């Protein structure tokens, strides 16, 4: 049984139809890269899965349970954590406070400060610093670390490398590789296609809210994704249920 199943999901921003009938399925331990141009619906899809955006239609199942109408804070308890676009840390609080405020709110056996700092050692000297004073890379690391405090079964990462220096992105992906090696299940929204293909086990491309390509990362060429990205060809795997 899949850990996450999305069936015919629709989501809107007022009159704008941001996600149109998306089907996805994700097994435990998989890493799914969600790619697409700006406005393709990637962020809305992630937010809908996390419960931060109301689904207009369709179903979202997580570990067998229908969570379509569950509020975000209760999805965290089930094991879904979203690292939102733009980090959205509590900038007036210290890094330590940002992490501690998330502790003990997710699944039983949640992450502790020690375990999370093991994954992101770059945060250790910054614990007492105000989150708003960190560099972009450090803020992104803190945002992922905060999500890990809830011991998620599914980690949703929105635009991990957006606005960061190449060095900061390399450091972040090093930490992510450690998580992946530990068997984490991740949905990753990433503008850097090459990096997404290297990290993910599967790739799904969205265009105007619809799935235009879905396939195993190992069998996917950059060109094929780019075609789907810009809608230059048909949608070969759009009916494959995100598999």
């Amino acid at each position, binding site marked *: 049984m899949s850990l996450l199943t999305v069936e015919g999901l629709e989501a809107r921003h007022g009159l704008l139809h941001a996600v149109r009938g998306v089907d996805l399925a994700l097994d435990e331990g998989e890493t799914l890269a969600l790619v697409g141009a700006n406005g393709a619906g990637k962020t809305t899809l992630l937010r809908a899965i996390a419960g931060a955006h109301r689904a207009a239609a369709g179903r979202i199942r997580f570990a067998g349970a229908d969570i379509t109408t569950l509020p975000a*804070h209760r999805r965290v308890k089930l094991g879904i954590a*979203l690292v939102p676009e733009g980090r959205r840390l*509590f900038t007036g*609080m210290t890094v330590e406070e940002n992490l501690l*405020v998330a502790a003990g709110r997710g699944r039983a056996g949640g992450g502790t400060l020690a375990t999370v700092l093991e994954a992101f050692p770059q945060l250790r000297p910054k614990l007492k610093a105000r989150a708003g004073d960190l560099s972009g890379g450090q803020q992104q690391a803190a945002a992922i670390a905060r999500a890990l*405090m809830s011991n998620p079964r599914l980690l949703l990462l929105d635009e991990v490398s957006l606005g960061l220096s190449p060095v900061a992105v390399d450091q972040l992906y090093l930490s992510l590789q450690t998580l992946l090696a530990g068997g984490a299940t991740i949905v990753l929204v990433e503008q850097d296609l090459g990096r997404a293909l290297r990290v993910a086990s599967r790739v799904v491309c969205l265009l105007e809210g619809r799935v235009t390509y879905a396939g195993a990362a190992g069998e996917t060429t950059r060109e094929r994704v780019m075609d789907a990205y810009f809608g230059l060809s048909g949608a070969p795997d759009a009916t494959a249920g995100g598999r």
Partner: protein
Amino acid sequence: MIFLNQILQGLFLGAYYALIACSLSFLFGVMRIINLAHGSLAVLAAFLLFVLADRFGLSPWLGLIAVVPVMAALGWVLQVLVLERSLKGGLLVPLLSTFGLAIVVDNLLFEGFGADTRSLAPAIGDLAFASWTLSDDVTIGQLDVIILVAAITVLGGLQLFLARTRLGRTIRATAEEPEIVGLIGIDSRAVYALATAIALALAAIAGAFLGLRATFNPYSGGMQLLFAFEAVVIGGFGSLWGTLIGGIVLGIAQNLGAFITPHGFLIAGHGFFLAVLIARLYLAPLADRVRRRGRKVVAA
């Protein structure tokens, strides 16, 4: 020496203002709501204490043990039934709904208690007027000292609670990013309800000191709200220590105004408040520009 006494009395009066402003500042800091019913709710708490003292002979100090939880529960209900819905309507709707609530509370109190002026002072005996005489011109009221200690304790306690406890961190996080806290497992609706409960518990304490140090009637809430609002604005909205300083500065300004002319009490307070507002409007952008220029120089 008389001048010094005026400043000292202003300090004590300001401590009361800080106490009554604390709840307003806290609720704005957490929920960005300016609770226009704040003064009326403090007066409601004073009336509850009055009933306990008048009918059951209960001292206002003991009465607080009952009234604080009742007001906290009322805060919870207020959030769930009124504020939560109002917040969805934008910034103006909570202002209107709390303004309406103030009218309802004032008139219910008028209906129940009439227009008579009351006080809790008789329930605390000599303490209401007992004082220490430091010199011919300088006296310190014992109740005033209690109010000052209460103000520092309440504001300091609240500050500590917000900074050091898990619940305090949760409230601060919710105040900063109400949407994002849901994504880390916090139910922002429950946090808002808790914050409103705390705010009304604080209003109850302020109401007790209003009744102890002065008289009150069903329509006293408006003036209390005005002083609280001025203290909060002078000190900076959402800053608890700023609220204490704002209250004290307002109290001193009022007392110095009264020292100059008997009619100067309110005029000096409002005038100072206006001066702070105007200074903020004109000086804040200037300070911002200087700060940015300073940063550029450092970067270069």
